[in-house]
């Protein structure tokens, strides 16, 4: 398949993830949609890496995966802390960061 097809799939997944971040109110699902957007970027990086026949883009994708794992860890830690303190798990209700 041509590289353009992969880029089209990547753009679609990124758009779906962006729509989810804007429409969902559960912070867990918002984190999942952020994962979708990061994965779409990964797919584009690897498609361009294949386009040039150069492995540098794959290293970039691996680093993006590491950053995504860090973001998930901290985000889930915040959600667990919210559940412990009986704060409503709703993005619209959360207006302050004071612990």
């Amino acid at each position, binding site marked *: *398949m*041509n*590289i*353009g*097809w*992969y880029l089209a*799939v*990547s*753009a*679609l*997944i*990124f*758009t*779906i*993830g*962006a*729509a*989810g971040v804007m*429409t*969902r*109110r*559960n912070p*867990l*699902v918002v*984190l*999942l949609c952020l*994962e*979708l957007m990061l*994965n779409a970027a990964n*797919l*584009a990086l*690897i*498609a361009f*890496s*294949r386009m*040039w*026949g150069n*492995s*540098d883009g*794959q*290293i970039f994708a*691996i*680093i993006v*995966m590491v950053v*995504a*794992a*860090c973001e*998930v*860890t*901290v985000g*889930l*830690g*915040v*959600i*667990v802390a919210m559940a*412990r*303190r009986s704060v*409503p*798990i709703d993005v*619209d209700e959360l207006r302050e960061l004071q612990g």
Partner: protein
Amino acid sequence: MSGLFFFVAALGAIAGAIGVVTLRNSFYAVLALVGHLLSLAALFLLLRAQFVAAAQVIVYAGAVMVLYVFVVSYVSEGPFQSTPGAVTGGARVLAYLFAACLAAELMVAMLGNGLEAINSKGAQYDPGFGNPAEIGKLLLTKFLFPFEVASFLLLIAAVGAVVLARRRGGGIDPTDRPVLSVMDMVRDERLGSMAESVHAQPAVGATAPAGLESGERPNEEGGW
């Protein structure tokens, strides 16, 4: 044949993404994301990125998603059973409009840019392209600094998650303290705890502050 594989994997990836956004139960949303990640790994394989595909399946679909499942089951068991749904009304229309504009813009930027290589199957590549050996060599030579920074970032994230999600209040109620070993009966219950280290409560062997009964401890919020 690779075209057939591409369409199956791409349809799976897009269907998984739509499932993540639309499914109301967040547990099913996590499962949809697992399917999405597996389809994406198949796409990576079609692009000759074997190592990234394997890492995607093992690290992402394996480890990170298990973390998600644990947190989903932990949170949904709490006092807040009602998980919030999607936004409604004008905000929803505006969000979908913005997403449609974003899709159009991305399509124009990626497919309408006139780059000739986008309409090709890709350049010639070495036989070792995307191999674990090649990726490892690059990570330890050309990209050593980003590699080390990434490992440091993972360490910081792990410590930060522990600090964020730890149990607040510091105090351990001596009545519901589990006895795990013989040493638990002998040593003081606050020995080595975070509350002792920051003097939130009287340390081992110290006298209780004035105004408190000996067995009564202030149940402080906020830890340190």
